[in-house]
C-alpha cells in the first residue's frame, strides 16, 4: 500500500519526539512522543482528512511532512523524492510544490505587509514573474479566492477573519503547489464563513488538481471534504478508511466513540452515545500496549501489553485499515 506508484505523498514510520529538558544542565529527562510511527499515503487530487483530539499530534504530522519541524525518524516522500534528505537549496525548490494553510487567520499574515506584497512575495522571490506579469498573476490569485484586486494596497487588519483566510489561501496557491496541508483551516471561522472557505477549497481542488491533507477536529468538515479519513489517537493512527466506510462501519472503538459524540442535525435520530471514561493520557507517559486501552470499552487482557498490528478490513483495495486487537 505504501509502495503505491501513484502516491504523491508517502509517509513511512514518521516519528516526532520532543525532548523535555530539566535540571541545571538542561539534560533530556523525558520525551514527549507527539507522533509515533505514522504511515500513510496520499494520491494526486485526493483529500485525506486527519482527525483527532487536541494534542494528539495532527499538527505535528502536517508540519513534519513540510519539514517545518524536523521529524525524529521516518521517511517522507513527495513526488518520489525523499524530503528529509534534501539539502537547503533543493528543499526550497521542493517547497514551491507543497504549501500550508493555517488555522489562525490573525497570526498567519504579516501585519506590516500589504495584501499585495504578501501574495506577490513568493512569486518575486522564486523569480516566477515580475513587473506587469507579476501584477496580473496577483490580481488573478486574489480573484480566484474571491477577493478583489483593488484590495492589494490594504493591510491584513482591515479584513475580517474569512477574508484573511482567503488571503492565506491565495498566498499558498501563488507557487502553484500540488499538495496543501490545511492545518485546521476553518476551525477559527464561524460556521457560515467556514462553509464558504470549504467550498472555495473544493473548487480550487478541482481546478488545480490539488491534494489536501486536511487536519481538523470537526467530523462534519472532513465528511464534507475528505475522500479518506485517518483517525489519530495519542500520536498513532487508530483507523484509516474512506469517508463512507468510516462513517458507516467504524471499526476501532475510539472511532465509534468519536462518531457517537458527533452531533447529528436530526432531533429524531436515535444515537447511542459511547462515553469514554477518563482523559487522554499524557504523551509523556503513553500507556503500554494499545494506547487506547485505559479508556477502551472493549479492552482485553493483551491490549495492555501488546501494541496492536495493522489489520486490513475487507478487500485491500478498499484501504480500510485499523489498529486494534479486536479484529486480529
Amino acid at each position, binding site marked *: 500500500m505504501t509502495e503505491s506508484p501513484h502516491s504523491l505523498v508517502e509517509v513511512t514510520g514518521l516519528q516526532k519526539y520532543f525532548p523535555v529538558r530539566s535540571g541545571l544542565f538542561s539534560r533530556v529527562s523525558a520525551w514527549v512522543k507527539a507522533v509515533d510511527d505514522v504511515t500513510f499515503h496520499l494520491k494526486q487530487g485526493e483529500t485525506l482528512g486527519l482527525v483527532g483530539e487536541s494534542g494528539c499530534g495532527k499538527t505535528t504530522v502536517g508540519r513534519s511532512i513540510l519539514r517545518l519541524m524536523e521529524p525524529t525518524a521516518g521517511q517522507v516522500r513527495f513526488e518520489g523524492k525523499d524530503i528529509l534528505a534534501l539539502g537547503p537549496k533543493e528543499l526550497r525548490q521542493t517547497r514551491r510544490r507543497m504549501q500550508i494553510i493555517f488555522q489562525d487567520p490573525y*497570526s*498567519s499574515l504579516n501585519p506590516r505587509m500589504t495584501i499585495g506584497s504578501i501574495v506577490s512575495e*513568493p512569486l518575486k*522571490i522564486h523569480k516566477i514573474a515580475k513587473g506587469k506579469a507579476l501584477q496580473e498573476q496577483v490580481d488573478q490569485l486574489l480573484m480566484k479566492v474571491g*477577493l478583489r484586486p483593488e484590495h492589494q494596497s490594504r493591510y491584513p487588519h*482591515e479584513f475580517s477573519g474569512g477574508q484573511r483566510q482567503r488571503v492565506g489561501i491565495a498566498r499558498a496557491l501563488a507557487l502553484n503547489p500540488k499538495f496543501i496541508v490545511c492545518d485546521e483551516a476553518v476551525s477559527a471561522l464561524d460556521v*457560515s464563513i467556514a462553509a464558504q472557505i470549504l467550498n472555495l477549497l473544493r473548487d480550487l481542488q478541482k481546478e488545480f488538481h490539488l491534494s489536501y491533507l486536511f487536519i481538523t477536529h470537526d467530523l462534519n468538515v472532513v465528511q*464534507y471534504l475528505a475522500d479518506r479519513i485517518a483517525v489519530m489517537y495519542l500520536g498513532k493512527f487508530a483507523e484509516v478508511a474512506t469517508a463512507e466506510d468510516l462513517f458507516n462501519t467504524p471499526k476501532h472503538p475510539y472511532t465509534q466513540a468519536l462518531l457517537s459524540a458527533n452531533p447529528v442535525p436530526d432531533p429524531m435520530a436515535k444515537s447511542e452515545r459511547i462515553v469514554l471514561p477518563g482523559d487522554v493520557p499524557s504523551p509523556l507517559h503513553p500507556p503500554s500496549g494499545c494506547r487506547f486501552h485505559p479508556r477502551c470499552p472493549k479492552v482485553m487482557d493483551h491490549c495492555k501489553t501488546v501494541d496492536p498490528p495493522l489489520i486490513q478490513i475487507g478487500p485491500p483495495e478498499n484501504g480500510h485499515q485499523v489498529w486494534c486487537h479486536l479484529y486480529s
Partner: protein
Amino acid sequence: MKTVISAQVATKPSVRADDLPEHETPWQEFVRIYQKDRLALAGFFVLLALLVIAVAGKALTEWWVLFDPEVVRLPDKFFPPLSSPSPDIAASDRPLGGLYLFGTDELGRDVFARMFQGSFVSLSVGFVAVGISLLVGIVLGGFAGYYGQVKLGVMTVDTLIMRFTDAMMCFPTFFLILTAVALLPPSIYTIMFIIGLTSWMGTTRFVRAEFLALREQDYVTAAKALGLPEARIIFRHMVPNALAPVFVSATIGVATAILTESALSFLGFGVPPPYATWGNILSDGKGFIFDAPWLFFIPGLAIFIVVLAFNLVGEGLREALNPKLRRR
C-alpha cells in the same frame, strides 16, 4: 450531513469594496493614535524644536560664528540674563543683538552661546550613544532569539549571549563608565562609545523576547514554507515587527544618555573643553550658585525639559504602538 453544509452556501461569495472599513496604512493609524495624547504631542514638538536648535547651534557657533561661546570678556563677568554689555567691550566681542540673553559666566562668556553650542553636543551624544546600543542590542538579541538553539561547544548561543548580557547588567554602569573614561583619552567620541557600549542590555533582552515570540508566529512559518531565504524572513518579516518596543525604550534611552553625559561632565570626566556641554556649564556654575544662580538653573532647566520631552514621547509611542488600541 453533506446536504446540510452545502445548503448553507447557496452562492459563491465575493467581497465588495464597500464592506471594508476605510483604508488606513499602519503609519496613518499610528499618527491618529499618537495625536490623541496631548502631552506626547507637546513632547514631540519640543524635540523637533530642540533638533532645529541643536543643528543651528552647531552651525552658528562653529561654522558661521554669529554667537561665539569662547570670547572672554573679563569686565562683563556675572552679568545677569537680559543685561547689555558694558560700553568698554570691543564691537567685535559684543553678543548678537547687544544683549546677554542668558547672562554671562565667571569669565564673561555668553551663556546663551555656550548653551547653544552645548545643545548639539548633548543631543548628539544622546543619539549616537543610543544608536550604538541599539545596534549591539538588535544584533545580539536577534542572534539569541533566532539562532538561540544552535549549540556552541558546551552551551547554546542563547545561553552564551544572555549570560554575557546578565553579567554586563551586574556592573554598576556609572562606575564602569567612570573607570573607562579615566583610562581612555578624553574626547566626545569616547563618551558616546562608552555610554553606548554600557547600555545595550535592555535592548538585547527586548529583541530576544520579541524574536522568540515572532518565530512561532504563523506568518513566519508561512514564509519558511514558501521557501523564502532566511535573511528575508529575518529582515522583512521579523525585524519590523520586533522594533516597536525597542523604539520606545530607545527614546527613553536618549534621555538617559543625555543625563549620563551631563553627570559625567558635572564630575569633570565628561566632554573636555573647549566644547561646552550642558553638563559642564552646570558644573562650572555650581561654585557660584548664590552669586549667579542662572549659571546653574539655565542648563539644569534645559536638561530637565529635554529629558521630560523624551520621556513623554516614549510614553506616547508606547501607547500608539500598543496593538490593543488598534482598530480591528
